């Protein structure tokens, strides 16, 4: 039998949710553990085996000088490096710090600042090293995570489309909340992957999978304003979980 491939899971600044998605694959977890050697996954096991690894899943963004170095090491040890989640692919919600106004935050000094070492920005993994595939989502969808894993293990292209949430929304048979309820929705500019969850719970998509392949944020913002949202609403909508992803960053900058 072929050698079992080695899988590693790494964490940078994040909430742990994307790694947890792997443990949330209750039905597949043991099969996965049989199929690959889980060589480094601290959340699941204290057994740590050295690299190189066939596939590394990286969660979290780079926010400290130490992590900026650590990701270089991870890259060197990994044949394929896949980032999982908004933090790793776009800097995550903590990238809101990138927009903080210098005067504002220097006045917000905590008790003993010397203990903290942090960078001024939260940046995606791809700003530091080459990434083989980026899986979107805050958090990632566990079915997509499995799909990416089996695609990489079987050397095929992951079936992870980059079109809008609307495509999934309509396939699912939802009634559009934007058209039928007048609820502002980010679905038209947001990357598919969640299966159009929010609209199926009667709420507008809030963009947690980041920008789709060709987002027209200007046109969507115009529609939001027609539905009664104001500039602050649209600005916040773009500036949350993917604030630093370029199309959303630009949209957040230009309104409000």
């Amino acid at each position, binding site marked *: 039998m072929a050698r079992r491939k080695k899988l590693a899971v790494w964490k940078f*600044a994040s909430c742990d949710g994307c790694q947890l998605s792997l443990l949330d694959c209750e039905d597949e977890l043991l099969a996965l553990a049989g199929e690959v050697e889980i060589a480094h996954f601290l959340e699941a096991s204290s057994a740590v085996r050295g690299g190189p690894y066939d596939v590394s899943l990286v969660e979290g963004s780079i926010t400290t000088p130490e992590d900026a170095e650590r990701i270089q090491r991870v890259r060197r040890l990994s044949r394929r490096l896949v980032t999982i989640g908004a933090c790793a692919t776009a800097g995550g*919600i903590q990238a809101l710090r990138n927009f903080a106004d210098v005067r504002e*935050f220097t006045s917000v*000094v905590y008790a003993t600042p010397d203990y903290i070492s942090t960078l001024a920005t939260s940046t995606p993994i791809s700003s530091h090293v080459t990434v083989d595939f980026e899986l979107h989502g805050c958090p990632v969808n566990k079915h997509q995570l499995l799909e990416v894993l089996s695609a990489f293990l079987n050397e095929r292209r992951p079936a992870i489309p980059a079109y809008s949430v609307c495509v999934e929304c309509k396939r699912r048979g939802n009634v559009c909340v934007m058209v039928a309820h007048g609820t502002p929705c980010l679905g038209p500019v947001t990357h598919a992957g969640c299966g159009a969850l929010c609209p199926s719970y009667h709420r507008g998509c809030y963009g947690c999978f980041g920008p789709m392949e060709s987002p027209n944020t200007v046109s969507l913002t115009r529609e939001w304003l027609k539905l009664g949202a104001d500039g602050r609403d649209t600005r916040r909508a773009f500036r949350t979980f993917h604030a630093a992803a370029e199309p959303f960053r630009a949209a957040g900058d230009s309104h409000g």
Partner: protein
Amino acid sequence: MAERRTIRTDFLARVEGEGAMRVVIRDRQVADIELRIYEPPRFFEAFLRGRSYLEAPDITARICGICPVAYQMSACHAMEDACGVTVDEPIRNLRRLLYCGEWIESHALHVFLLHAPDFLGYDGAPAMARDLPKVVEDGLALKKAGNEVMRVVGGREIHPINVRVGGFYRAPSRRELDALVEPLERAREIALETVRLTASLPMPELEFEHELLAVSSPGEYPIDQGRLASSGGLDFGPAEFQQHVVEEHVERSNALHATLDGGVYLTGPIARFNLAFDELSPLAREAAAEVGLAPPSRNPFRSIVIRSVEMVYACDEALRLLADYVEPERPYVDVPPRAGVGFGVTEAPRGALWHRYELADDGTILDAKIVPPTSQNQKAIEGDLYRFVERHVDLPDDELGLRCEQAIRNHDPCISCAAHFLEFRRTNR
């Protein structure tokens, strides 16, 4: 020359987030104990400022992927408190149901995948599954049942999307909820089995002395709302939290340490169990009695049994809520914004989670403060380590190190939570 031993783990495994542990022993005396949190801070409280009060549940959920519901619930309560609104009974019940899902999921994760391997001598669940497949499969089935509840009520397992200030975006239909009954019944059976299993594990000896603090709500086991009560007789509302709990920033850590009226205290399953045992369901109490577990239970290693009892309770409670479910007429109540301060405290699987917000009249958040369970427990965890090492100083380094890690895991620390909050200061490097 003095004999000096240092026992350290640079990367704590099987906990949520990134932390390290260091124990220094000099002349057979504990010289220093440190649970270091090096998880980089993410500054949530800083960037909550200026956001809308309606965004807090979604934003704070991202503090922790393991207990997002806890964050959402505490945030909702705090916002509703600030705006002077209380939700109707059906909405409240739906929240409690969702919360039960998170308890089951989080406890099952911790008991089976993170903690049990310590007791049984494995480095993790994948290894354990090779020898004890049934145990791991059962654990995963339990976990899945919890996740199912979150998926149906919350929309997804991690960072649910259906929660809003005032209630939910959409109330699940009777039909959707009915589908949960069977898996939960099965989960309850597994949970009962789990109580027996965990009670039979070899328990290291240890006893703690610190005070216990838990949410208290008359007539029910503390989960989703209430005041705070302590084993020392304290009883206060969420608004008075800061008069009793003080956080200080310690050098070695990216997290804050808290004290209760100046003393070390513990929150979490052990505290809940000891303070609210009588409110457990009869089935959960029986399960505890069957294995000889009753308050006072002061061995932190037994927390794994207590968590199992709480899983029995959470399944029981979820099934009760499902049976009584009436689809609310509206899935949420309107919560018009107003200027003011609001507080919310709920029981995350690993302990009390407190939120405080100050709002402007249009609902803009002016100030936010969050105290997660792990920073409250940090001193207690170090206290446990201290006493444990003191008693077992003769163990070889390896063994002592493993046991110390196990002692830390007793409290299911969530380091992502603990490190969420520091204010932001730029060091331009």
